[in-house]
């Protein structure tokens, strides 16, 4: 349950920034685009605990985002909100990359057409780009959500594994195995497999190219 709450919150939290970033990466050329893209990919390749440690340092009392710098406490360390941040950061690269591919598949000339019909940039994005890319974007959301569900390293580093509060599916499996509760571990394992299986199935179905939807022939 904590897992679902954390993963949902993480997905919602990163969704808008991820879509905007992905759209920018897909559409415009700008200085530092490759650098940005590489930075965004880092959580995919870094050890999750490294990301967690980095966040911990950022958020600790004296860190750049800590109580003493900001003047108030974000209250993220050892809380479920901290787990949300960790899961969000870890899910971001997957969401951005999948969404970027989805946006790239939308014919930019369709967006131009919408502009000539009286829609400004934002209206064009909301009313045409998003619906045209909807399959790929849904896939991105599902992949991001499952990544958030399964996140372990960064989450335990920043939020710990407090049963009922910050203990997620991933950390619960680890805890069950540590204390030798194999029944518990098997049940959790089964849940994890089912969630992952369904997610990939749906995501792959959505990501399959549908020419009539993307507008490219």
């Amino acid at each position: 349950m904590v897992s679902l709450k954390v993963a949902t919150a993480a997905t919602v939290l990163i969704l808008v920034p991820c879509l905007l970033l992905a759209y920018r990466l897909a559409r415009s050329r700008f200085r530092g685009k490759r650098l940005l893209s590489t930075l965004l990919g880092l959580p995919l390749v870094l050890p999750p605990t490294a990301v967690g440690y980095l966040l911990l340092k950022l958020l600790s009392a004296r860190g750049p985002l800590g109580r003493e710098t900001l003047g108030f406490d974000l209250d993220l360390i050892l809380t479920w909100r901290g787990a949300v941040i960790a899961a969000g950061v870890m899910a971001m690269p997957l969401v951005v990359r999948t969404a970027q591919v989805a946006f790239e598949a939308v014919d930019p000339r369709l967006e131009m057409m919408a502009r000539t019909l009286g829609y400004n940039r934002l209206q064009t994005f909301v009313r045409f780009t998003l619906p045209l890319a909807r399959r790929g974007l849904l896939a991105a959301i599902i992949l991001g959500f499952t990544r958030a569900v399964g996140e372990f390293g960064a989450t335990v580093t920043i939020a710990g594994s407090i049963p009922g509060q910050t203990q997620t599916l991933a950390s619960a499996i680890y805890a069950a195995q540590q204390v030798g509760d194999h029944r518990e571990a098997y049940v959790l394992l089964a849940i994890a497999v089912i969630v992952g299986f369904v997610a990939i199935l749906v995501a792959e179905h959505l990501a399959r190219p549908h020419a009539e939807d993307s507008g490219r022939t």
Partner: protein
Amino acid sequence: MTTVRQLDVELSLPLDRFDLEVELHSASRVTGIFGPSGAGKSSLLKAIAGLTRARGLIRFGDEVWLDSEERVHVPPERRGVGYVPQDGLLFPHLDVRRNLLAGAGRARDAGGSSEASLDGVCELLELTPLLDRRVTALSGGERQRVALGRALCSGPRLLLLDEPLASLDLRLRRQVLPYLRRLRDELSIPVLLVTHEPAEVQALCDEMVTLERGRVVARGPSSEMLKRLDTLVGPDHEFENVLPCTVVETGEETSRVRVGTHEPSDVELVTPRIDQPIGAEVLIGLSSREITLSTGVLSGVSASNALAAEIRSIQESGVLRLVTAALGSNGPEVAVTVTQRACDRLELEPGRRIYLIVKATSCIVYGG
């Protein structure tokens, strides 16, 4: 007919292989932008629509859309143009009705009722049976008609048509062209039509601007196009004359039409039977290779038409000659392909009065 708002364009836009440098002042209903592919025609249209940034000046009526010195660039959504590209660019996630209504919000804001304009446009372009279809289930001709309809439903003040028929085969082009003509006659908004089809220029344009490698190389009334026939014909030296006509009489097998619509001429043509009421306007296509020249009236010929005409010019086209002749006393000019030998034998020269012998079955009825 209300006066048409003037469009003034002075643009410079760097393209891949050359710069587009165009000055255009258009106050006529339909201005053709004519020229070979890659001449910069589409880029010009996109710049006028505001889809690419160019340097220079664009004024429409008393509005300034672009003035790079004053840093004015009105975004495309506020220019109120209807843009129809070659491939229609229908929104694949919307059905035909919702495609047509995609720009209707703007039309409503401008004071029009979207339902009224949807009905009108559907009638004009015969789209009503398509309304609930998916756009992926449309044929090429239907797609282009929907694209035109969508542009019209958005209440445009200027129509930009970028080779709207180029993606269609000849048969479909002949089917859709009459719709474009009807549209031209029923709307009082200016149209810029990019094309490299002489048939479209003849059927639609009042004025014509010819572009080559980004520069204007000729401009004038579209009838002047016939002065440079050699640039218009393909390797077979064939030129399709397109004559707007009015149906006068329809019999069992054939119809009689009068050449000309708004200013009818004294020239009549017998054509295959036309399924249109008396008085309807039709486009008749007549290939320059299907016309026989004769210096006197023939008797005992099967061809139904012997049109009196006066030769205006004789132009070389490879080994062949292209003769232009004005029909009747006030009719349009048509082009005829003949051999050099025939030219010499008949002693053809400008000013000479001749007859054009045309079989009824050689007349192609557009939209039929």
